């Protein structure tokens, strides 16, 4: 499993996928909760739960990317050789950076629900 990682892009883009799903789910849920019931608190609770779940998932993917990057054992962040090891670690490095961006994105998408307490 660990060895096949140098061929798979999934680990790298897993966190952005979480961000994209969270984005769509938050918009759909808020629209539905507000249009059907006008239930602002329900909408906000849903957004909060989805956001916690998304951040949790991103943290898991970030941890796995960090391990795949394996920075500490080699202390080198240049991975430009055409070898399996460099490819694997490059994907891990990129995956970690994308996880950070995704976490920021998820937080910003959820921020309005934190401040605005009504469906209006």
């Amino acid at each position, binding site marked *: 499993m660990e060895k096949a990682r140098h061929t798979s892009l999934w680990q790298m883009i897993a966190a952005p996928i979480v961000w994209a799903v969270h984005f769509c789910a938050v918009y759909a849920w808020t629209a539905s909760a507000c249009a059907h019931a006008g239930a602002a608190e329900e909408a906000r609770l849903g957004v909060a739960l989805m956001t916690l779940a998304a951040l949790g998932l991103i943290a898991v993917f970030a941890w796995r990317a960090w391990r795949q990057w394996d920075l500490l054992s080699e202390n080198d962040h240049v991975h430009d050789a055409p070898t399996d090891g460099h490819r694997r670690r490059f994907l891990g490095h990129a995956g970690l950076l994308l996880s950070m961006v995704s976490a*920021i994105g998820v937080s*910003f998408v959820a*921020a*309005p629900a*934190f*401040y*605005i*307490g*009504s469906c*209006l």
Partner: protein
Amino acid sequence: MQDEDAQGSTTAPRRLCWGGGALLLTACSGPQSVLDPAGRDAEVLAVLFWWMLGGAVLLWLAMNGLFFYVTRMKERAFSPQAADRLIVFGGVVFPTVVLAVLLSFALSEMPRQRDLGEGLTLRVTGESWWWRVEYRTEDTETPVISANEIRLPAGSRSELELAANGYIHSLWIPALGGKTDLIPGRETRMSLEPVTPGEYGGQCAEFCGESHAKMALRAVVLPPEEFAAWLEQQAAPATPPETETARRGQAVFLREGCGACHAIRGLGARGTIGPDLTHLGGRRTLAAGVLPMSRAALEDWLRAPEAIKPGVRMPAYGHLAAADLAALATFLEGLK
């Protein structure tokens, strides 16, 4: 001679620059300016604007300062560690923190704009190309109908229900608050809390057809007691004409069938296609903020409305005898 030329060519752009700057500054105040707020909601927007502008100016100066520093003052190669640190802090940490702070600030200012009104409710319907305005309070059984002018009491939050007939419009009174679209088949809303009594300009802010640019309105903010008195006066039927000319004007109004489209409560006209004219003469403007409310303007409008507002549905009455037209204008102006 040569010196003069050289001088002329350097001062001209400078003068243009100062002139342009002064011109821009004059746009900051006035009855229809976002930067000259007269209501709670416009204040929030102005505060947001100034903070965002301040932030943008600081960032611009910092970025260009940095460019200047590395290209003109310290022209040397950075160590890889220094470059890494610059990228991580300058490119990741700093923008994230700045954006988070600005976003949080903007969002924390927004809930106030979503507050519900507390008493007075206006229903504003976007027509082609004018505004139908209805006022409801807890005391009134039937709404008080008016047009092309929005009056609000200062110091309290009023609810505005927004609808549209035919095309999408957008209601915007910059001195009082943000804009909201009026959409056919849907009901949208906004609320406004004016603070300073006065007269402010409003405008349709969504292209809606031929006379979009001529679909303006006047917003009049009154002290609460004055507003209550005004609303009571608006609810009353029209006062019958008192002079001979005005009576002749009323006869022309009825003979020409104006009542098929316009209502004048108390005088038998019940049309609902065009604006309610019961208290037309008491409004500040004519034809949705396009003309002043005067007898001469009324006559011009009656003679050739199409020339003033392209695409208007009102037919022209230029074929009437001059005396009839003048009498009609006098009658309408007298509907205070």
